[in-house]
């Protein structure tokens, strides 16, 4: 049973890391933020799986936090990001 949770968690970790590619390649800031958003959701999923795999229900509380706060970074981005100046100073 635990082996399965671990396998799935590892798979999810792979997809998570694959998301890094999008962060790296962009091309524009919104794409990168989008990938970060993916990190949040996938992270929640991994945390839930780890809670099962490691027999630590307290991890559900940990999962609660990114679920709650992942959006804050996105909000900060859309509210405060400023399009980059076209020309260097």
């Amino acid at each position, binding site marked *: 049973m635990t082996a399965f949770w671990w396998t799935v968690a590892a798979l999810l970790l792979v997809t998570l890391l694959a*998301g890094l590619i999008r962060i790296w390649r962009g091309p524009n800031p*919104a794409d990168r933020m989008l990938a970060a958003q993916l990190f*949040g959701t996938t992270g929640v999923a991994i945390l839930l799986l780890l809670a099962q795999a490691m027999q630590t229900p307290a991890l559900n509380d940990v999962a609660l936090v990114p679920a709650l706060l992942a959006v804050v970074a996105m909000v900060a981005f859309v509210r405060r990001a400023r399009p980059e100046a076209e020309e260097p100073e």
Partner: protein
Amino acid sequence: MIYLQYLLVGAGCLFFIVGTLGLLRFPDTFTRIHAITKADNLGLGLLMLGLLPSTESLPQALKLILIWLLVLAASATASYLIAHYVKAQSPDALPHADTTSEEQD
């Protein structure tokens, strides 16, 4: 029961993979938003469903659901916000005309 759990969790995982694939394959920001929002939320939902039988109490189960709902609400809002942002960035052309060309670093 346990197989149902496997099935659900496995399916959930699959949707995550699909979401990421979409994120990587789709050509522009808007379509990527589509992919990631819809696939991941479904993935998380299925995974949560799969985990539900393993919970020890009702509140614990409800907490899982709560987490999912929070993620749902957050993604729904975030998807709107980012789409809105992207549109505001390039109001004349929607969808953005340039986003298909990948910038190489």
